[in-house]
């Protein structure tokens, strides 16, 4: 069947279940990413999968597409139980994924990118012209008028993302999953029309994952909401309002384990003026006073980490200044920022923070090294013992690799190291991600102690409860731009979620 002749869905087929997912569970180490998720998808239906960062949406998408396997549960396609052994099997069965990460082959032609999944038999002869013609059908479907034999790398961004969509459509999927596929598209509306056309004319079912509530309302027939890996409910088309979706996504009660005490605010310790990062189109002005904690909220990709990294000199600022304790930073190197009194606790503690195989003592001494000075083993050991006691790092020795520690204890090592040179401005990026509840409380206590000592803190987090519980003020970012600042008294999870998703204040 060629794509040119649409096959209209007969009324008998309408409403037949294509995909059925039952009791899916999946854990990563101690973290339960999905816990008993079941959902059904009918022919021609578009289902939105909604949830906060880390609620398990992408994990579910990957399981349905066979990219990762489930610990428990079954995936059924047209009533047939699928035990996907890998992406290959899922593609054959008719499930295609447009994933969050682009999967482009920049040096191969556009045609080869679109038809990459057809590269099955090693001995088959590849005919370029033939491929170009076959790919052109799908390129046309997504509205791309380009030479299919150009290398993909020659295309502009935006066009490349459309190629990703064409690539998924080229597998002639029965179920198409779009995982944040619109974030990099200049014109998502165009994509929606493409998807709708497929669904209506050929009965394809689609699952869309997006943080933009507007897109959920625009495209989906139904929304399925996940929270902490568990299903919390479904909303039919008529019930899809921004407020309903975001309150279901968040829907938790504030715990009272925040050790936050009000601290007297002092001088401004950190101030950015007109700071433009490579992620934010508009300048950002933020100031933090001594003893104050300012939150940065926003979705993944909203530029939270980029903002912190730019302030800390790890990324080049495109414009603007950073002033720390009345010193203006000049060449914007991490070294300069550290010397001026800034300390960054990076988002990914294993990739950016700690040296996993190195001992606790070694990690703690890391920022004390100077190229032309000797080390002081005695002092390093003494300080390591002090840090273990001070920060409540649970270990029986300072001579064990940090990789042996739990996430929470490793995070405490990182905090201790970042606080080693007594910074006046502390930048915390997701300080409690992947940390259990007990360690979380301890980390909040450590932050509180730092505030009491007059440090100014900038806290970026996707945990809204944490932001509201800890922060004096919260700045919300949406696609790199500050879209609102909320005082502690006004901040609610619903309001933050709404602003982060690009909604406007009611």
């Amino acid at each position, binding site marked *: 069947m060629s794509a040119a002749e649409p096959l209209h869905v007969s009324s008998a087929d309408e409403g037949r279940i294509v995909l059925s997912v039952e009791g899916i569970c999946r854990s990563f180490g101690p973290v339960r990413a999905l816990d008993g998720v079941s959902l059904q998808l009918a022919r021609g239906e578009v289902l939105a999968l909604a949830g906060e960062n880390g609620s398990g949406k992408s994990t579910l998408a990957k399981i349905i597409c066979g990219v990762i396997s489930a610990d428990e549960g079954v995936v059924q396609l047209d009533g047939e139980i699928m035990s996907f052994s890998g*992406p290959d099997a899922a593609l054959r069965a008719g499930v295609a994924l447009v994933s969050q990460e682009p999967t482009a082959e920049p040096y191969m032609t556009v045609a080869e990118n679109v038809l*990459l999944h057809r590269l099955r038999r090693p001995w088959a*002869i590849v005919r370029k012209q033939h491929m170009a013609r076959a790919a052109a059908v799908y390129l046309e479907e997504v509205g791309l008028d380009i030479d299919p034999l150009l290398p993909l790398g020659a295309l502009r961004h935006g066009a490349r993302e459309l190629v990703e969509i064409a690539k998924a459509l080229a597998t002639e999927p029965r179920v198409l999953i779009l995982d944040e596929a619109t974030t990099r598209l200049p014109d998502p509306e165009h994509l929606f029309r493409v998807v709708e056309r497929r669904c209506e004319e050929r009965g394809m079912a689609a699952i869309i994952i997006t943080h933009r509530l507007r897109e959920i309302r625009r495209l989906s027939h139904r929304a399925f909401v996940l929270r902490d890996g568990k299903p919390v409910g479904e909303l039919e088309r008529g019930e899809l309002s921004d407020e309903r979706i975001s309150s279901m996504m968040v829907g938790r009660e504030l715990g009272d384990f925040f050790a936050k005490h009000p601290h007297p605010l002092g001088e401004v310790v950190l101030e950015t003026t007109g700071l433009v990062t490579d992620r934010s189109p508009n300048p950002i002005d933020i100031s933090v006073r001594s003893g104050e904690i300012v939150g940065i909220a926003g979705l993944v990709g909203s530029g939270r980490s980029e903002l912190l990294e730019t302030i800390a000199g790890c990324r080049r600022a495109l414009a603007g200044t950073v002033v720390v304790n009345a010193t203006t930073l000049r060449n914007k190197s991490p070294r300069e920022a550290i010397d001026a009194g800034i300390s960054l606790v990076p988002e990914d503690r294993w990739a950016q923070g700690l040296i996993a195989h190195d001992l606790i003592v070694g990690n703690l001494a890391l920022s004390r090294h100077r190229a032309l000075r000797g080390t002081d083993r005695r002092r390093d050991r003494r300080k390591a013992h002090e840090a273990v006691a001070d920060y409540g790092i649970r270990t029986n020795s300072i001579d064990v690799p940090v990789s042996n520690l739990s996430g929470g204890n490793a995070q405490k090592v990182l905090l201790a190291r970042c606080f080693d040179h007594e910074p006046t401005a502390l930048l915390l990026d997701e300080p409690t991600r992947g940390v259990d509840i007990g360690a979380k409380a301890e980390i909040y206590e450590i932050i509180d102690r730092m505030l009491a000592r007059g440090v100014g803190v900038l806290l970026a987090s996707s945990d809204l409860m944490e932001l509201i519980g800890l922060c004096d003020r919260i700045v919300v970012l949406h696609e790199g731009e500050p879209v609102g600042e909320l005082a502690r008294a006004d901040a609610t999870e619903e309001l933050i979620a709404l602003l982060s998703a690009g909604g406007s204040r009611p």
Partner: protein
Amino acid sequence: MTSTPQDTEPDSVLTAGGSAGGGGIGTTWNRFRHAADTYAGVGGVLVLLCVYLSFTQDTFLTWDNWLSIFEANAVVLVVAVGLTFVLLNGGIDLSLGGIIALSGVVMAELIANGLSAWLAMLAVIMLAMMCGLFNGLMIGKVGLSFLVVTLGTGQAFRGIAQVRTGGQTQSLFEVDLVKRINEGELLGISWLIWIAIVVLGTGIVILRYTGFGRMVYACGGNREAARLAGINVTAVAVTVFVIAGTLAGLASVMDSSRLLGASPTAATGIELTAAAAVLLGGTSFMGGRGTLLGTLLGVVFLGVLSKGITLAGISPFWYGIVSGVVLIAAVLLDRIRNGKATP
């Protein structure tokens, strides 16, 4: 139907070149430009070198001179073809010199023990294939680093060759087939060159026109994308090392025939010369990009450079300096071009 009044397509297209629309001359030109980009670096330097040598050296532009350049580099070319597969897949094979030495020595030993030369040659090519398979399984299947594995096996293979011969060169002077390969000609071109041409041609066809060839590019360009598209990335990784090993076995037969002997110190460092040629030819060290025509250009460049230095009576030590500088310059040029291409 979804047709709504505002359904007119937004004209937000599309290529970085700008003029690359639907078809016609623009299309061909764009494709040509992207293809030509690959060879611009080494091709330009090669042309300059050839022009300079043809003006300064009378003998340079003679048929015999070119035949001797190709004959001297036929072995390197065969090794470089195999190495191109490995580099395209995003690895490198440092064991090829070791495989060549071991294969040569085993071949001499088999012939000395009365096995017919044909069978001995076939047997050592199989042996080299097994060496490549071992590398491939350790790297692709077990997941060890290609640098460590091939560095180790390369030393081990050469070590075995040394142990078996006590370090002595084994003469193959008496062997009829070896002499025929050494001296034989077809249409005035030596067998060694013909073998290299056939290997190169086959390689080009495989890389350009077969599913496997495209898989090699796909895995090297973006392994995860290839995996998600259902390609067996492990099998591809193993196979490229098998190809490199097998061609090293063939290169060993050629080398032993050319030198009429097999030495455990044969082909020392040939994998680095071949790698330099492959990289000069525009293949990316990160994989996914490059062609065998580029590899041919790289080998020819190194051959012409070496010959030119001999002809001009310059100290051969200059060869290393010039080829090293040109290699860095070629990679630098590539980097600058790429820096411009991606916004």
